[in-house]
């Protein structure tokens, strides 16, 4: 059934952004929208840890140990599957390479898991070689809980649902396993430049 076109309706003014910066089907957003699938978790830093499971030995960092690791500031564009992109977002975080380098493994995939039960899956090569961080700062401030603080996964080259908020660790896997959204219709890989939003894209 074809929809009724509403005379004069345009929706929010949506900017298409500078040439080449914005993937197909996206528009540029100045705000930083908060998308929530549940209550915001609040883990006290004394209880927080980041774990990597499934390697030769389990690895674990407390908050203090994590913050003692070398970190960097990165500026990246981010792309949400709900069609907004935000350019030049500034983050502070620990490269995932720094963490994975301390674990002996031959995993092909990771399943990131978060407080509140959220999970998302990624190939190992998409979180290594400087492509991913565990971010604890945004725009010069500690990362807000509503944006995933104290720390979230940051994987800017994929749709932002892969950048798991409230991340608490990785499970190293031999085979790809769908996380929360991937089990519910979203694409297993999620490349915004190939517009891989849903199964079969």
């Amino acid at each position, binding site marked *: 059934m074809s*929809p*009724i076109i*509403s*005379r*004069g*309706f*345009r*929706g*929010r003014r949506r900017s298409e952004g500078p040439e080449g910066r914005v993937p197909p089907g996206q528009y540029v957003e100045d705000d930083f929208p908060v998308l929530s699938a549940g209550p915001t978790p609040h883990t006290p830093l004394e209880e927080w840890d980041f774990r990597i499971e499934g390697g030769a030995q389990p690895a674990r960092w407390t908050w203090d140990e994590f913050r003692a690791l070398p970190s960097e500031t990165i500026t990246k564009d981010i792309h949400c599957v709900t069609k907004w992109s935000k350019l030049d977002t500034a983050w502070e975080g620990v490269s995932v390479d720094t963490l994975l380098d301390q674990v002996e493994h031959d995993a092909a995939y990771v399943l990131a898991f978060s407080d509140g039960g959220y999970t998302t899956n990624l190939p190992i090569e998409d979180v290594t070689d400087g492509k991913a961080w565990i971010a604890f700062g945004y725009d010069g401030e500690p990362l807000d809980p509503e944006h995933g603080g104290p720390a979230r996964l940051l994987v800017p080259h994929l749709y932002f649902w892969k950048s798991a908020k409230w991340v608490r660790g990785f499970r190293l896997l031999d085979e790809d396993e769908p996380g929360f959204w991937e089990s519910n219709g979203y694409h297993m890989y999620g490349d915004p430049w190939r517009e891989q939003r849903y199964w079969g894209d």
Partner: protein
Amino acid sequence: MDDVVQETPRVRTLQLAVPDWPGHRAGQHLDVRLTAEDGYQAQRSYSIASAPEQELAITVERLEDGEVSPYLVEELRPGDEIELRGPIGGYFVWEDGDNRPVLLVAGGAGIVPLMAMIRHRVAAGSTAPFRLLYSSRTIGDVIYREELELLVADDPGLEVFHTLTREQPAGWDGYARRIDEDMLREVAFPAGDGPAVYICGSTRFVDAAADGLVALGYDPLTIKTERFGATGG
């Protein structure tokens, strides 16, 4: 869309003519979907303001950052077509025949489905006692103010209590603060009367009012709630 009533500067009632409209129940809502020429779509839910006995109408508040509400409140003209789905709702409804006392608690635009219930009560000639506690920011934000005054003057079975949370006119003798347990204690029917309760507004408003009533001894099962998003808009 057939006709328009400007209720307050930011709020408009849209009267709708829908072919083969199956009728509706007081408390139900419609989903409105707008499609732009480039195919972009946006969808929002709006409560039906009219009683089942009246011509179908929805009341829409224009939200500051809204995407759909500015269009409905400012752009839409009589004769324009919009796409609707509904009526929707089987839980948050009140029907003549239910003779329990009814407590209605409205936060801002949450008044809309409760007004449909009040209008239905009047149209059906029901004698069920109704009390409305209606929270608005200022007197200018009170939707259906004159109609409520007239209905109250006409019928002792309907009582209306207003609270204005941000600003009150000179000589205001209503409440002047956010809803709290003390206010509910003064306004609500005694729990022992077995009243039905309908609360509508933002999530924070609804949760606070429901918690307040439970603390006063109301059975949670008799409290029906409908939460509006600020996702609406």
